[in-house]
């Protein structure tokens, strides 16, 4: 740990104008060069907002960053002036979105859409940018890339489009890629192809990645570190092995329990009862309390503090962790 982390997010909070509590609350994590951090959580947990906030692409208003810093190579991404942020975006930080069907401009040829990202951040001529775009298509392993430069997005399948998105995000060899559910919309076979591609590209370029997903299977495949989010709060974070082998937070455990396994077992699935609290009305204490089988009055009223769990980088925000001790005490 001689080097400072590539990205150091501390206390990031996001709020909808006119609501009482932060939607994303006091989020902190770090990411080192070349590493992959998976942010995992169910819909509405604020994981996409976090990524957008880091990109400076939050829809303001009504969404607004209300606190925290995000230091990236010396700059605070949350307070950087828009013009400088634009210089970073697409150059040092790339982003891959969930919906490959809608994230590409339907009216522009894909070659132009890649070349545009290159031209924006380099001095390359139009021809060179085009050559670079071709190279990128080749690197994301799109078959017959020469002919694909001049087609429109609708001519491509979902998997191919997501490869194009990856090409755009990686066109300027960024230090950091934010990938927001990049494979959720894809078939499982295509998902496997795309994940493999991302792994390989990351290995080749040394790019760090924040991968946002709700699929623990994808997490297990891709992550070095994991951050589990629930209702805008980070409930547990740590190295991937720690999260899978030593989950501490009831939500993490519940999430893992409720996944049907591939090795059969016709037992009833374990569930997390209830629903996620609405975005405009977050509860005051532990946000998971209402759904937690272990919660008591303290949980409902006081936000839990984050504590280390064994491994120093494995941290959990729960009054009851580790569970077995609580149960013993009871």
């Amino acid at each position, binding site marked *: 740990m001689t080097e400072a982390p590539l990205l150091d997010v501390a206390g990031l909070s996001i709020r909808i104008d006119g609501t009482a509590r932060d939607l994303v609350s006091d989020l902190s994590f770090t990411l080192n060069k070349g590493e992959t951090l998976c942010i995992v959580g169910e819909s509405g947990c604020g994981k996409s907002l976090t990524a957008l906030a880091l990109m400076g692409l939050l829809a303001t208003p009504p969404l607004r960053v209300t606190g925290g810093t995000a230091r990236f190579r010396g700059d605070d991404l949350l307070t950087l002036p828009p013009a400088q942020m634009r210089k970073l975006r697409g150059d040092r930080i790339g982003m891959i979105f969930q919906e490959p069907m809608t994230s590409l401009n339907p009216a522009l040829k894909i070659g132009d859409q890649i070349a545009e990202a290159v031209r924006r951040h380099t001095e390359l001529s139009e021809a060179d940018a085009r050559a670079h775009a071709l190279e990128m298509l080749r690197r994301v392993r799109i078959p017959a890339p020469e002919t694909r430069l001049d087609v429109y997005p609708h001519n491509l399948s979902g998997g191919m489009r997501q490869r194009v998105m990856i090409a755009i995000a990686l066109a300027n060899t960024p230090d950091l890629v934010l990938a927001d559910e990049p494979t959720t919309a894809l078939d499982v076979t295509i998902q496997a192809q795309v994940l493999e591609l991302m792994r390989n590209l990351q290995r080749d370029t040394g790019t760090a990645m924040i991968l946002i997903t709700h699929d623990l299977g994808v*997490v*297990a495949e891709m992550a070095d570190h994991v951050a589990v989010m629930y209702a805008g709060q980070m409930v547990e974070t740590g190295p991937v092995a720690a999260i899978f*082998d030593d*989950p501490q937070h009831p939500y993490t455990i519940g*999430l893992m329990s409720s996944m049907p396994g*591939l090795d059969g077992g016709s037992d009833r699935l374990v*569930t997390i009862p209830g629903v996620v609290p609405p975005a405009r009305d977050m509860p005051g204490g532990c946000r998971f309390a209402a759904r937690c089988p272990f919660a008591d009055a303290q949980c409902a009223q006081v936000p839990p503090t984050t504590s280390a769990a064994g491994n120093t980088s494995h941290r959990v925000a729960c009054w009851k962790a580790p569970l077995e001790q609580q149960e013993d005490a009871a």
Partner: protein
Amino acid sequence: MIRHDIILETQALQKRFAGRKPFFGEAKVVRAVDGINLKVRRGETLAIVGESGCGKSTLARLLVRLMPPSDGTVVYEGRNIANIAPEEMRHLRRDLQFIFQDPFSSLNPRMTIGALIEEPLRVHKFGTKQDRRVKVAEMLARVGLPASVIDRYPHEFSGGQRQRIGIARALITGPKVVIGDEPVSALDVSIQAQVINILQDLKDDLGLTLVIIAHDLAVVRHMADRVAVMYLGEIVEQGPVADLFANPKHPYTAALIAAIPVAEIGARHAATKLEGDPPNPIDLPTGCRFHPRCQHATQICQTNRPALDGTGPDRWAACHHANTLSLQGYIGSGHSRSPTTQARFDLYRAASAVLPPQDQKTTT
């Protein structure tokens, strides 16, 4: 072998969609469902899996005649519903129900929950208004919603709750067969588990026959008794779920299984056994439709279309090499949780089971 009681059966079922007619020549035809023979046994859960565009949703709709087939028969309890009179079909619908994929869009936003769930009863002229209200309240309780939601509108509910409403609506007429088109795939994991449990409970309680369309193999593995794997409008493999997962006979099935990312550390990486995208259903490959993506394809695969043949007890596969290939099925990582961790999981299981599985505590 037990002689199974077949409740729903298709023969040579086809659905073709006409594409846009080009300036010259004939219009292209999309063969969404192309000659499917399927037997659904009374009381079982049959899963139909496949990638998007393989025709599984079309097949689901053909099974309950939400669209008319182009060819072939669908026989329900001895009656061919493929060419039945519309009025008669309307009456049959109390027996054949459908659960839709998207709980956000499959409920009329302008009707109350009560009206939505009651509607099938009203259509099929069940009892008096009062009887129906009672039945609706009962049904709501069964899917774990308080009776007080009866006058609310769908948008006031979360996805999981809406899917429960959809299930209540489908089951209220006491159907014999329920087709679920991806009934849980739009839901978050925690909610998905709730809904899967409800479906299973109801199936057991009501003695339903379930046909589940799904792309998530884990869900299929959990819910189904038997599985049919579809590829480009055809069934390529069929068999009991455990056997099929353990010993796939068709390379496509094996590839599907291999592609699933497993939520375990140290599990094998999801493998890319399949290159490229599924071909366009307009320009179908000759021979075996899977051959362009198949590692094991040989000359014969390019020319001859394999039939769905028996490969073992209750097992069928449409592959020229089904009996010679030895394909990898699902194998766990062998990695097991530490005792502490396992204890934690057990604690959770125990604690959450104490809570009613649904949010019946909801105050209203």
